[in-house]
Structure formats: structure tokens, C-alpha cells
């Protein structure tokens, strides 16, 4: 089973008689140790997905499984333990990541205290985490005395305190400049590689795909396309970046065509499929009877 495994996730909010379908049968699989970015415009349902995956919200229907925990059947107590030991979380706003009146070390210590780690073993773990993120000098500083990038790296350290299997990051670079964004992404990738933590980043910034190997695009509550990035050594021995965009085919065979394809070919209502030897062709319905 995939480390993060969602199939046909549906989440419907209904308020005062109006129903909002935030997720409309989303399917996503992430392997253990993978670093994946989920990209989508505002309102595409990515935040809802993250709430469900982190156990803060329950899906209306479908299947959701994170590190072997079935998110649909968990009790409140199990959810708390899940948040405590299985996952870590980094938000966009630093105010939601760090207590402003605690130092970096104390912020990490709070996570450790909540996780039930004995006091005598906290200091060593804190130093280890700060070391991994290369921010040892921030140990006794409060968030107010750090830059945005430093705060986010401390937030990553806090999220990793209890050795989670999965790290979720919601727009972790949303309020940072490019240089700091780069540092935060580097930190996340580093953590992913060195500690083997599965990392899932949610962002509306399509540029992120240049930083991660796999980018999943969400549109209208569904995964639409994926970009896989790989490096190859070309014939001259130089490293070459190679990115290819895929459409996502769900369990029952549905797939979303990219919006610009549809626009360019002026496809509407119906299309004509033709099965070839090794691919499927999609044609605009040309004649009047086809329309």
C-alpha cells in the first residue's frame, strides 16, 4: 500500500442550504520517502485535502490512508495520537507554527513534552534537530528575533520533533522571498533525503515544481495532472533536468484534459476518442451529427 493513499475522496460542506463540493473524487498515492508537491489555485480543494490527511477534517466519502492509519475510522483519541506521533505540520503563517513567547528550543521542547519525551532526553533531541536543519544558533532565540526563513526552518524542526512518518507543509514559503524560499525547500528536501520522511507540500505556486521531483496539480477537487522531474546525464556527461507532464487517470478511467488543450482545440461537450496501437487520440467533435 502507498504511504499516503487516497481514492475517490469526496468532501462536501453544506452551510445554510448551499452545498460546496470541495473534493470531488480525488485520488492520490504517495510512496514512502517521496517528496511531493500539490499545486492548485485558490479554491481547488488542496487545503481541504491537507486537513483530511492531517486528521483535522473527515471526508464525506472515499478512502484515505496515511502511514497505515485509516482516516475515516479514527477516533478522536487516535487522531490526537496520530497528530502527536505520525505526522508533522508546517503552516504558512509563522504565528501558527511557533509560540512567539517561546525560544526555538522551547518550541521544540513543547512538542517533545506533548509527545511524552522525558525531560532529560529533550536537550539532546533538540540539538540533533537544530543540527539537521543547520540552525543551532537559533536555539535560544524567540521567533521575533529570527528572519522568516529561519522561522520556517525552526517550524520544520518543531514538526519533526516526535519523529513523524509524514511531514505536511501548507504553503511553507508563501510569505518568503525567493532566497528564503529556496532555503526552506532545501531544508525540506534535505530532511526528506536524510531522515527518509515522506513530505507533502501544498502550494498555489506553480514554480514549486522546479524544486521537487513530483508535482501533482489539483483542479476542481480532483487531481488533474502530474509533473515528474528527473535528472539525466546526457551524452556530454552534463546533468540535464527533465520534466514531463502527465494526466491522472483514476480508478474508473476518468481523466482531466488540461484546460489550455481544451481551449486551444475548442472542445465542448463531447469529444471523439480513437484507440490506436499504443495511445488514445482525442478529437474535437467536428460534424453536426457528432455535436
Amino acid at each position, binding site marked *: 500500500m502507498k504511504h499516503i493513499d487516497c481514492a475517490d475522496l469526496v468532501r462536501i*460542506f*453544506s*452551510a*445554510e*442550504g448551499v452545498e460546496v463540493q470541495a473534493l470531488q473524487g480525488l485520488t492520490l498515492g504517495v510512496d514512502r520517502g517521496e517528496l511531493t508537491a500539490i499545486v492548485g489555485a485558490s479554491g481547488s480543494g488542496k487545503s481541504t485535502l491537507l*486537513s483530511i490527511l492531517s486528521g*483535522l*477534517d473527515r471526508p464525506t466519502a472515499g478512502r484515505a490512508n496515511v502511514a497505515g492509519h485509516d482516516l475515516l475510522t479514527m477516533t*478522536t*483519541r487516535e487522531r*490526537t*495520537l*496520530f*497528530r*502527536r*506521533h505520525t505526522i508533522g*505540520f508546517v*503552516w504558512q*503563517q509563522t*504565528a*501558527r*507554527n*511557533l*509560540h*512567539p*513567547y*517561546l*525560544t*526555538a*528550543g*522551547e518550541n521544540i*521542547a*513543547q*512538542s*517533545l*513534552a*506533548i*509527545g511524552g519525551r522525558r*525531560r532529560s532526553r*529533550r*536537550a539532546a533531541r*533538540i540539538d540533533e534537530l537544530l543540527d539537521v536543519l543547520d540552525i543551532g544558533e537559533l*536555539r*535560544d*532565540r*524567540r521567533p521575533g528575533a529570527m528572519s522568516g526563513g529561519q522561522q520556517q526552518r525552526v517550524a520544520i524542526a*518543531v514538526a519533526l*520533533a*516526535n519523529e513523524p512518518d509524514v511531514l505536511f507543509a501548507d504553503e511553507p514559503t508563501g510569505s518568503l522571498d525567493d532566497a528564503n524560499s529556496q532555503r526552506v525547500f532545501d531544508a525540506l528536501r534535505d530532511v526528506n533525503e536524510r531522515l527518509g520522511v515522506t513530505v507533502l507540500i501544498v502550494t498555489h505556486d506553480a514554480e514549486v515544481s522546479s524544486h521537487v521531483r513530483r508535482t501533482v496539480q489539483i483542479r476542481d477537487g480532483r487531481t488533474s495532472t502530474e509533473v515528474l522531474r528527473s535528472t539525466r546525464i546526457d551524452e556530454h556527461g552534463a546533468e540535464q533536468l527533465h520534466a514531463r507532464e502527465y494526466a491522472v487517470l483514476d480508478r474508473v478511467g476518468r481523466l482531466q484534459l488540461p484546460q489550455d488543450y481544451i481551449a486551444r482545440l475548442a472542445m465542448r461537450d463531447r469529444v471523439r476518442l480513437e484507440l490506436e496501437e499504443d495511445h488514445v487520440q482525442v478529437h474535437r467533435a467536428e460534424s453536426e451529427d457528432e455535436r
Partner: protein
Amino acid sequence: MTRSHLGTAGLLRRHLVGGGAVSVLLPVLVLISVLSIALAPRALSIVSTTELQHQLNRTSPLILDFVGTGRLGIPFQQSNLGVDYLTGSTQSSMQSLRDTLPQPLLEATAPTNWIVQTPVDPASVNEPVDAKPRADAKPRADEVTLSLTIDLQWQQRVTVIAGALPTGWSGPDALDPETSVRATAPIEVAISKASAAAIGVGVGDVVDFTLAPLTIAAIYVPRDGADDYWIHAAELAVPQVLRGEQAETIVRSSVYLAPESFPALAQEFAVGSLRAWIPVDPLAIAHPDADAIVDQSRQVLIRDAALNYGGTLDFRSSLPDLVESSSIRIAAMSALLALSVSGLAGVLIAVFALGVRAVLGRREAALRLAAARGAGELQLRGAMVLESLLLSVPAALLGVAIAVVLIPDGTELVPTLIPAAVALVPAVLVGVLTNARPLARRRREVMTAQASRARLIAELAVVGLAALALLLLSRRGLAGPSTVVGIDPLLSATPLLLAVVACLATLRLYPLVLSTVQRWVRHRGDATAVFGAARAQRDPALGFAPALALIVGVSIMVFSTVMISTVQSALADRAAEEVGADVRVQAASVDDESLEALRELEGVTAAATVATTIEVPFVVGDNERVVRVVVADTAALAAVRDDLPALPESDQRIPVLLSADRTLIESGTPAMLGDAAVVIVDIVDAVDLPGIGRDWVLVDIDSADELGVSFPAASLALLTLDDPERSADVAALAVDIVERAQPDSGVATARAGDITTAAAQARTPIVEGLEIVLVVAALASLGLMLVAIVLATAAAAASRNRLLGVLRVIGMSSSQLRRVQAWELGPLAGVALVVGAVLGVALPALITSVLDLRAFVGGTAEVPAVIEPFAVLLVLAVFVVIVAVASLIALALGRRLAPAGILTMGDSS
């Protein structure tokens, strides 16, 4: 750089310190409430004791002390026994009478005093032996009666100013063998200076007396004139001077004998009288002991004090009755206090809830973060409860400590600490109000129907509780156990529950009122009004807690105002009833010249005299009873007392005015007064006339002769003044005038009463205590409302500032924005003003109809609630000012968050 604390305790401490200034609010609220709760019963206990002692202290020792009268017992064969043997057993019985009293009565009494006296016999003064006229010679009394007194302790009570202590008398001498006459040796006596002067004797003078001649051996004055001994044994200090039928002076006095004379006169004393009294110290009786004192005193009164050798003693004392009536007054006050304090508790809880919300609001981000890191509900609630306990427990203990220092009452530790339980209130509120799932999405699901059902159930539960409390109260009655000082829980809870029900009803009706207002303002087309009204209705910034605080707060203020005016007017009525007019003068006779002189007095607007006859049979139909006939110039009387109409002249039946229960007899009824035919032309509702009572028939002086009964000179004058404040001065002048006109100015005296003195006397400690409590309650509710408004308005700051930011971007002017803000608090304040005023006026009306305040203010007339519109309007105006001030403070605080910053904060706020 800060040193990091990695331990859990250190982290919690950091968490606390990071709480900010709002965290100070809770401990301050706890401190103030614990202090008031700890002080209230102490203060109440002090006021109760002061009231009790005040009532006892103004009672004469003759009535208050246990006064026993009876006869001394002496052994049958006594002639050769010594004085110690004869009186010793009585003395020890007397001591044990008091020493065996149980506590606390023992504490409140002093050792028994007793004197034994021979019967009063006439005495006549012989010419002094030396026959020299003394320089200070005075006209002697026409008649003198004396009794002989033995008091074993008399030497300690007097100071001899002339002569030497009397020696013992051993009985009549043996028969003189020469003359065959018993030449009786005189008995040496000591007489008080005042009696000696009244009788006209000095040291060495001999007074003829039935038993034997008396020689004045010593003249004394009381060593301590203020000692109550001289009230009980008044004739030993000051003679009683009476005027006989022919205006002759009769002096009645008593003299001390040396106790050694007792054996020889034992038989005389045995037929005389024994007087003993156990002095009661009013200042040694505390109200908490009242019940025990009443029981124990009654035991003393019903117990026969049997003395040795057949002596008897019968005790009388008004102590138990006085203590009991004081207890009833105190219970009435406790009930009133419970009623006014109960509302305050409601406001306090509302303010606590608002304070806790404010603290939690500051903590929201921290809670969300901790929850994201995996903190469970229990951990989050636990941390917040722990925080509030750490804040409020020290404050509560400090409050108790301050109370103990201010009013130490020496009770045990545990009851003293009970008020500190207030510290649990914020902890419980925090535990309940903490949002332990701060990560849960705030998007509203479709559950409105469910939520409204829950609200309805909660509201019905409160209404049910209120109904139950009312039912229990109506079964039990308002007054609890009479001597329990403190707050009656049922009585306290009921008005609060009623107020909560009123609040719930108000909040239910509030949207309806607002939608009406909204429709109305829409027609006027004022954009800010339309917007403000719509916001007030659809997104009210203030919820149940501020509504409760404001409605109950206003009602307490109005309640206090109405109760103060009610009590003051009741006291004034009582004083007027007691005096009968602004000034009253009573004397043996008030003649027409005196009346004219009284009318001439400066400030007197009307004066009338009243004469009463003895009781006369009065027959109406089959009903015969005995009434007193009051004769007066009814025209003049009507000018003084407008409730007593002037009687018309009539040729047939004599017109009379009857004081009676109006329902029993109709006016115009013919009746017989003695032998005269009268007609009742008017009836007044059982009016009390001073010195006359409530059962009387008023007859005009012109028709009085036709009654055929003799009536004496007028003995009562009633005056009305243009300025009642001057009544005490006028009363002093009036007494002078009337006294000078008495037939014999040496003896006859006049007594006056005036309305200011009577009113001042009616203001006992308990009345003053109640007034202070009512004023304090009003001020406290004012302060709490201020805090509540500031807290509630500040809590709504974030949403208001977001809104104002949007409105400013749209282009609203500052004055328009201010008007939008006014709509936030305005409608609720307006509703609170109306509902609170109605509650505040209704509650005193309810109280005066079910709780008999006569127990409290005295008097005979029922006490109605008195509403002074001006005072009530003033109080409501103060409320409006406070609301304005509070909202200005809150808006100033809220403005520190710049609207522009808030607009960019998005959903993070």
C-alpha cells in the same frame, strides 16, 4: 537571547507569562469578589450585633435586666443569730442564680445585686436637738414616707460626705425600770444628699419612724452616679416627690442601715420586699448568640427562684422579647440583602464569563498550535484550567487574607477559606469555554435546527428552575430562620433566575424588535442606520453575557434607588405616625393661652389641642365596644392633620369621626356614645394618635358638652411647621411654654416629641447598614457593567475593525463609521435600560407586597414601594453615561489594531 526552559513546568510558566495584560483581569475580579464575599457576612454580623446592641442599649435597665421581686426568707428562730448567718444563704443563692446561668447568657450578665427593704412607713422630722436654724434651711416636705434598706455591699456604692457610717442597731433597749417605758434607742441611718435636702434634715437630726426613731448618722452621694444600681434603687439616690390632692408635697425615700442591724429587724424585712436584679450588659450580646440568649432568658423567667427559709423571687425581663424583635428586623434585612446581592452575583458571573472569553481569545493561537502538535483535549483544557487556577487561587487567598485582616472574627480556618472557592468559578468557566478542538474547521454545517433545539431546551430548563424556585419560596415564605445571618441560597437564587429568564425572553424578543427597527429605518433611507440595524440583527457583536450584565445591572441600580426611597419614606411615615404632627407636646394640661402662645411661635403654621376622656361605651347597631372620646377643635385639628376632617355643626345627633376599620361600618351610621345620640359622619382608617391609640371617636369641642361626660383639660398639643427641619428647636420652645403654664411648675412637666428627632431615632444601625449596602450594590453593578461593556466591545474588536476597514474602503466618513459603531451597543443598551428599569421597579413592589417591612422600619402602617421618578431617571442617566464612556474606552482600545493590517490578515485572525 533567553535561556531556554525545556522542562514541562518551565514551559507552562513561559506560557503563563506570555498571557499578557488580560490575564491580570481575572485575578483582580477574583480578588474583588472573594473580598466582598468574605467581608459581607462579617460586615452583616457586625451590623446585626450593632443593631441588637443599639436596641438593647436604649432600653432602660429596669426593663432589660432580670429584675426579681419577692420576699426574704429567714429562719424561724432568728433572734440570736448573726447577720452573716441570716443573710448569708440569701447572698449565696443570689450569687448562684447568676453563676449557674449557661453561656452565652452568663457572659452577658453581671453578678446579682440585691437589696431588702422594710415596708414604706410615714416618718416625721423632729426639730433638731440644738434647735439652731440652719442657713440652708428649706421648706420641709409636708409628708415624708421612708423605708429602711439593707444592702450588704452598700459601703462600696456610696461616698459619705457628712457624718460617720451608721452603727448596727441591736433592738429596743430593755424596759427602763424607773419610767417603765421602753426608751427606744434610735436606729442610725445613712440618707442620700438629695433626700436629706428634700426632707430637710442634716447629720444628727432625728426622724420619728414607726419602728424606732431614726438618727441621721451619715449623708452620702452615689460613688458612681452612672451605675445602673441607682436606676434600680432610685429612691436611695433621689427621693420621689409627689404632689398630693391638696397640692401638698409628699417625699418618698429610703435610707441605708448598717447590715449589722439586720438581726434585730429581721421580721420587718421579712414582711418587706426583696429586690434582686441580674444586670444585663447589652454590649456583651452578639447577634449570633441571639437564639441561645432568648432560650436561656426564657428559662430564667419561667424558673422559680426559691430562696432558703421560704423566700421567693420572681424574675421579669424584656430581654428575650427585645432580642427576638431585633432578630426579626435583622432577618428582614438579611432577606433584603439576599435579594439585592443575588443580582450582583449574576452580573459578576457574566463579567467572569466575558473575562474568561477575553483570556481564551488571547490564547487561541497558542491552543491551535499546541493542538496541531498533538496536544489532546484533556491536555489543552488541563493547561488552561491550570493557568486560571494559578492566576485566581493566589488572588482568592489574598482576598481572604485581606478580609481577615480588615475584620478579624476568629473563626476556624476552613469556614474562613470558603469564599476562596470563587477561584473555582473562572477555572470551571475556562474548562467549559476552552475550545479544545481549535483546529476544527469553523465552516458551519447544516445543524442550525439541532442547535436551536439545544438552545430551546436550555432555556426551558432555566424557566423550569425559576418556576421551581418560586414554588419553593411560596411554600416556605420569604424569611428563613430568624437568626441565621448570611445569605439565604433559595432567596438569593430566585431573583437571579427570574432575571435570567427576563434576559432570555429579552434575547428572544430582541431580534423581533430589531427587525421592526430595521423596517422603520429602511423607510428613512439612512444608510448607516440600515446597515447598523441589519448588523445588530444578523451578526450581533454582543451575546448573552453582556445582555445579562446590562439588564441585571440596570435593574439593581433601579432596585436600590427605589428601595432607598421606600425605606426613607417608610421611616418618615413612621416618625410622623409616632409624633402625630411635626411637633407634639404632652402635659397635664395645655390651656388656651398656651395654645395661643404655641401658635405665635416662629415657624408654626397651625396648632391644635386634643383632650381625651376615659373610655366610653360606643354602640353601633348590635355592636357595642369601648372607645376613647377625643375632644378637639376639629377645624383647628384639620389644619394640623389633613387626614382628620373638620366636623360640621348639627342640631340633631352629634357628628363624630370614627377611627376604625373602614370595611365594618359605613359613614352616616347613627350610633350611641355613652348616653348621647351621635352620627358617624366620617371614618378614618384606624389612625394612631399619640398616647391615644387607634380606637377612638373624635367629637368637636362645641358639641362635647352635649355628650354628658366630663372631659379634662387638653393634654396634647399638635403643631405643624412651615419647615419640619426645625422641629427639634420648636419642640424645645413649646415645652417651655407649656411647662410655664402648668398649675405647679415645680413638679408638673411637659414632654415633647418632634419629627426630626423621631426620624433620626428610627435610623437604627440596620437601616443605615441597608442603605450603605444598597448604595454599594448600585455602585458595584455600575462598575461591573463598565467592565462588561469594555470586555464585550473589545472582544468584538477584530470583527468590527475588519468591517470598518471594508466600510472605509467603500468610502464611509468617520462620522458615519461612528454611527455604525453606535449600533453595536446602542440597541442592547436601550433594551437593557427598559427591561432593567421595569425589573428594578417591579422587584421592590413584589418585595413590599410579600415581605413585611414593618418588621424592619417599625410603625403600624403597611410599607408601600415608593418610586421617586427623579431619582430613577437620574440613575438611568448615569447608566447611559457609563455605557457611552465604556464604549469609548473599548473603541479606543480596539482602534490600536489598525484596520488596514486586519484586512490583510485574512482567515488567520
